[in-house]
């Protein structure tokens, strides 16, 4: 809970600034995983789909590498993005 609270003359407690730090960050991250767990219990759940799970793992790896490459590209990132976009839209 933020401590940056002041009281108005009418006794209202207001925050000067919201610090945007959750005290339940761990529970929050778990909430997403619990959701997945709940859905996984259903037979037709996409979270049990072997192919999809493999693709997601693959994408995770690609994204990791992509973030590293982005950092290396620096200012040229946008140029490269434009070229890739053109390729992706070509022939559609």
């Amino acid at each position: 809970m933020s401590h940056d609270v002041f009281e108005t003359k009418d006794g209202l407690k207001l925050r000067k600034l919201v610090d945007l730090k959750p005290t339940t960050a761990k529970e929050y991250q778990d909430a997403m995983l619990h959701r997945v767990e709940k859905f996984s219990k259903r037979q037709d759940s996409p979270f049990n789909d072997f192919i999809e799970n493999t693709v997601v793992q693959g994408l995770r790896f690609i994204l990791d590498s992509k973030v590293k490459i982005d950092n290396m590209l620096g200012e040229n990132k946008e140029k490269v993005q434009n070229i890739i976009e053109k390729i992706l839209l070509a022939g559609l």
Partner: protein
Amino acid sequence: MYHIEGTDYLKQKYYTKTKSICPECMDKIDAIIVEEDGEIWMKKTCPEHGDFKDKISSDPKYYKWTHYGTDEWSFEKNGETNPPDIKGKDPRGCPYNCGLCEEHISTCQLALIDLTNRCNMNCNFCYANVKKSGYLVEPSLEDIDRVMKHFRSKPIPPVAIMFTGGEPTVRKDFPEICAMAKKHGFKEVITATNGYGFQKKNGGLEWTKKVYEAGLDTLYFQFDGINNATLEKTRGIKNLIGYKERVIENCRKAGLTSVVLVQTVVKGITDVEIGNVVQFAIDNIDVVRGITYQPVSLCGRITAEEMQDLRITNADVIKEVERQTGGKIGINNSWYPLSTIVEFGRIVSYLAGVEPIEFTCHPDCGFATYLVVDPKTNEMVPIMDYFDPLKIVDFSNRFWKKIKGKEKKQVKFFENFVGDFGKTLDKGVNWLDKQQLKVRFLTGMLQYTKKPGKLMEMFSRMLLNGRWESVSAFTHGTLLISSMHFQDAYNLNIERCKRCIVHFGVAMPDGSVFESPFCTMNTLHRPVIEKKVAKATTDKVNNEFDTSKGQAIEDLAQEVAYNGGIDKKEE
């Protein structure tokens, strides 16, 4: 807002023509929306009742951006409409022909059913309340079933349903109604609530578990602030905070982890609590999925001066969020009209073969942003730290433009030569085509993604399968902050009405279902429609709640019997 930076459009004063209604006689009149004195105003004149002027936005630059259009970019969209339910009879057209009439250009995305106008509270700005109206409106289970069927049988059916009221949870058969909605195929079952059923000291937790198991997914939870004094001003009840906290606690214990805090924003009363509500949401992020601000709508006759004092717009709310969060959630880089993701949604739905979600409401209706926890700093940051949203949207728009209509033009090549076997081959070709499109689209999305992590995994699942489970898991990793400014007779713009995506369904005595956009229902149609379905009220109904305490008289009597009075120490 890079689309409009440096353009002539930005330098010119905003001006557009539209149609509205006279707040006095409700007749249709011309209106203009203009930029004046650094603000955007609607101006209109009724030949009989004179001039009216109402503020639409306090931020012209932002407003202009949301109304900017090029071949590739526009927030003003038309939906993939369902066939109309009726042929409009009133020659004046929209908004008198609800509905849905042939002029409507969006599909319903959120179906609403008023379950009752009974309520345990008596809020001063509420429109639907048995005590105020003097009659009871409460559809039977058969009526509700009919309305659900009506919505779900459309070619593009809504995926979400919300129960409204009154207070929906005062109905004894509420769990049954939730189960019924699931049976009809609604993926997301939501109830608007002040928390009544969930907060009960005796049995509230068990009840919460029961409705969750029955199919309730989300609470759209009335939450105006964290000070008792604020809630007393808006709801007329003392010491409400304990009541509100019990709802959150019971949801937490029951595993119902999807609560959206709904703050009605009233100038000088609840607007000061905007930051408080953000902080409350963050402190309870394990169960709170979002915040929705609703700038209050104005009813009845009010003077121009009163209007100036009371009117608060979406832009005011957004700027207040920015101010009260120390600039962390800024108007210039975090907020987007709901219609931003239309093309994105269409692509996902086409590629994954699921029901589309079409947020084609008018850009003045609603704005949203997502916050996520940065695992490194543990601080909540706008989702822009994870994505480049404008680039994603730009790419989606271009991509959709290229592939649009593909679903209607499936390959039928082999079928012509080798009959049934050819059909199978064609299916294969179509499947392969979709896969290559998926790869292209996913690669495009990855381009504009900045950080890896669990959230991104959920995002890619959403793109891959478009299933509601993936959307739900993704939203469980985020906090959605949105603002929807419902219209009233002063600012009603028929361009907004026609694009409305939030529709009431009412089972009519003649066996039909009356479908009406939320804003036209509340501004124009409610009194007429309700009178047609109203039942006489009884003393039992009138006296079942002590509306100064928000509790059932029965429960209060029990409390007195057990421990000598409710909330003794709080009094």
